């Protein structure tokens, strides 16, 4: 999170402290309850404009942000790369000027390049929310994962959290690691070295494993990350069946974790690659709840950023 003059952005979790993170989770928790009772306050963002600027396809995250903004009464516009002038050769900064002229208040950005939302934030007057940039960060995903965990354990510290899968290419992993470290958890990452750079091991509180069983042992949370089909046979992983055999979260492996350990996945899942179907659908799985918390977290983020922007 960063604030320049009167504008607040959420560009990443890195550098955020427990004191900065917790208010987002508290507010999101209340929005989760209000959403369930169909009582979300429609006047919070009334008269404000939210633009979902997606340079990369994403139905799930875009829908989640759109729903969050609408539940708070904002006017929402979805701009996707297919319909924007970016395809006609407009640079990212030209896009920023265009958006400034439209006077939008909150800009939700998804981009395939790491750092693109940060660049935009320097040039636009709106508050920028990073909805995922390259392999860098996905801060709202980390917040929703954190909220899901906190609701189940009643706390967000002192937990053993295993994160397994394509960590090298995952912005979710980076944001989750930053957040869960900041809150004081014991983080264990697992994957083949081609998907798990040793540099992650230099962060305090993070342990690397090339054997998933060691990461899962006595874990409170088993989080699987998507291993994209494109990675298979690309020189990083030979095949889906080998990946599943070495790293797939199945019943036998889940039994190594603590009884009742949470099974999480940011979606979309590759059943039978990183996670077995019966595990994904088991009572320990909170994958659907993650989606629900996603909307609540994004409501909280839009709400807080819009208020931070107001002159104090």
């Amino acid at each position, binding site marked *: 999170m960063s604030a320049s003059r009167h504008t607040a952005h959420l560009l990443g979790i890195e550098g955020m402290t427990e004191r900065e993170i917790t208010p987002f989770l508290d507010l999101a928790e209340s929005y989760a309850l209000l959403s369930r009772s169909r009582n979300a306050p429609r006047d919070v963002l009334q008269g404000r404009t939210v633009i979902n600027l997606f340079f990369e396809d994403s139905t799930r995250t875009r829908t989640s942000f759109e729903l969050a903004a609408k539940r708070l009464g904002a006017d929402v516009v979805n701009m996707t790369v297919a319909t924007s002038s970016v395809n006609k050769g407009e640079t990212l900064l030209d896009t920023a000027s265009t958006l400034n002229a439209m006077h939008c208040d909150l800009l939700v950005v998804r981009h395939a390049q790491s750092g693109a939302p940060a660049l935009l934030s320097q040039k636009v007057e709106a508050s920028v929310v990073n909805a995922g940039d390259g392999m860098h960060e996905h801060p709202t995903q980390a917040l929703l994962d954190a909220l899901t965990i906190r609701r189940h354990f009643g706390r967000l510290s002192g937990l053993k959290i295993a994160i397994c899968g394509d960590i090298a290419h995952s912005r979710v992993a980076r944001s989750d690691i930053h957040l869960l470290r900041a809150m004081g958890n014991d983080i264990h990452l697992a994957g083949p070295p081609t998907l798990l750079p040793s540099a992650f091991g230099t962060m305090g509180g993070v342990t690397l494993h090339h054997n998933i069983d060691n990461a899962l042992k006595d874990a409170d949370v088993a989080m699987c990350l998507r291993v994209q089909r494109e990675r298979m046979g690309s020189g*990083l992983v*030979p095949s889906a069946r080998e990946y599943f055999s070495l790293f797939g979260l199945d019943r036998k492996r889940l039994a190594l974790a603590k009884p009742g350990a949470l099974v999480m996945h940011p979606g979309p899942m590759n059943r039978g690659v990183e996670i077995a179907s019966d595990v994904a659908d088991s009572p320990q799985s909170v994958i659907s709840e993650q989606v629900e918390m996603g909307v609540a977290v994004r409501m909280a983020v839009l709400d807080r950023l819009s208020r931070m922007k107001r002159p104090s």
Partner: protein
Amino acid sequence: MTNIIFDNVRLIDPASGRDSKGRLSVVDGRIAAIDPTDTPKNARVIDGQGAVLCPGLVDMRVSLGEPGAEYRESIESGAQAAVAGGITTIAIQPDTDPAIDNPALVHYIRSRGEESGLVSMHPYGALTKNCAGKDMAEIGLLKQAGAVGFTDGARAFADAKQMRNLLAYSGFLDTLVILHPEEPSLARGGCATASPQAVQMGLPQIPACAEAMMVARDLRLAEMTGARIHFSNISTGEALRLIADAKSRNIRVTCDTAPPYFSMTEADIGDFRTYAKLSPPLRQEADRQAVLTGLADGTIDAIASDHNPADADDKRLPFAQARAGGTGLATLLGVTLQAGLPLLEALRLLTIAPARLLGLEAGTLNIGAPADLCLFNPDETWTVAAGQMPGRAQNTPFDGRTLKGRVLRTFHHGKEVFTAHGLPNNPQPAQ
């Protein structure tokens, strides 16, 4: 199974350092005792007449034609050539047709080896699918199926990033990756080492430094990834200096060479002798000397036959078009014994050293170990004659050479699998 007692033999076991006259008994296919005072019941007595009895040789690089090119060499004919050379354990190259790139084929090779009943066969797994150098093979599943290491055979990898990924992946599975170090763009189309002779002969050339360039790159990648790499067929002094330096810095690297590289030079391709067309090509005398030094000083960890069968039509071609490779199973011991190494050391490079590299239970005279044994006369000479060699393929680069050291008998798991011509092989129960 017949129990055996070897009498009057010189026992050489490089794993323990033993080199002494004595006796050895075999019970139920395993080594039962050294210098036993009594003779096992109903044992067949073999009087070695002072010949050397050592562990059956372990050959860590053998190409066979099966599956796909059985007309060159089948698993059966290759096994026959092996035992004639005193070899009882072979590791088999995966670049067959189809390549050994799926677990079922690993099981196939292993069981075909067992059917032959002659030698223990251990397949390498393909490093990339179809050994085509593109997509990573299922290294984890192949290892589970029993692949003893991974290689694409004589194909080197041009792409450094791909090599890094392959090494990182195989590194975490703790598998041995066997590399043929030859800078592919520099080697492309070449068939003789770059030299005045090759210029005179008008042959397209491969500079000796093509080997060192690849060794240098892959050592750096091994250092970066922590992978365990092994260079095959080292043929140049420059590559050996790089490897020795890497070993002193504790990089996980080993290497082997094959008999042609310490016993032949480019002079042996003489009048376009295609049987001496090998990959890498035969080098100049200075490099041959460097390989001998590397064997003596321990830089080279093992000697492999690099048996590479070809049929007449593969070789009866203009030199540049002929298939590269020579047979080597039957001549492995004899040529190695001429390298000027102490006998114990020469046998170490052919037995326990390669067995340890591949993690195999072989290559020792340990009590309880499978009785894989080679009985040979180190002083008897014989002449290599293409056309009369054991096995199907006859493309020996050593054709016409007289070798000292003749294999008399070979035993695999206690069973006599080879008997030299003219020796009795009827089991003779003890009186």
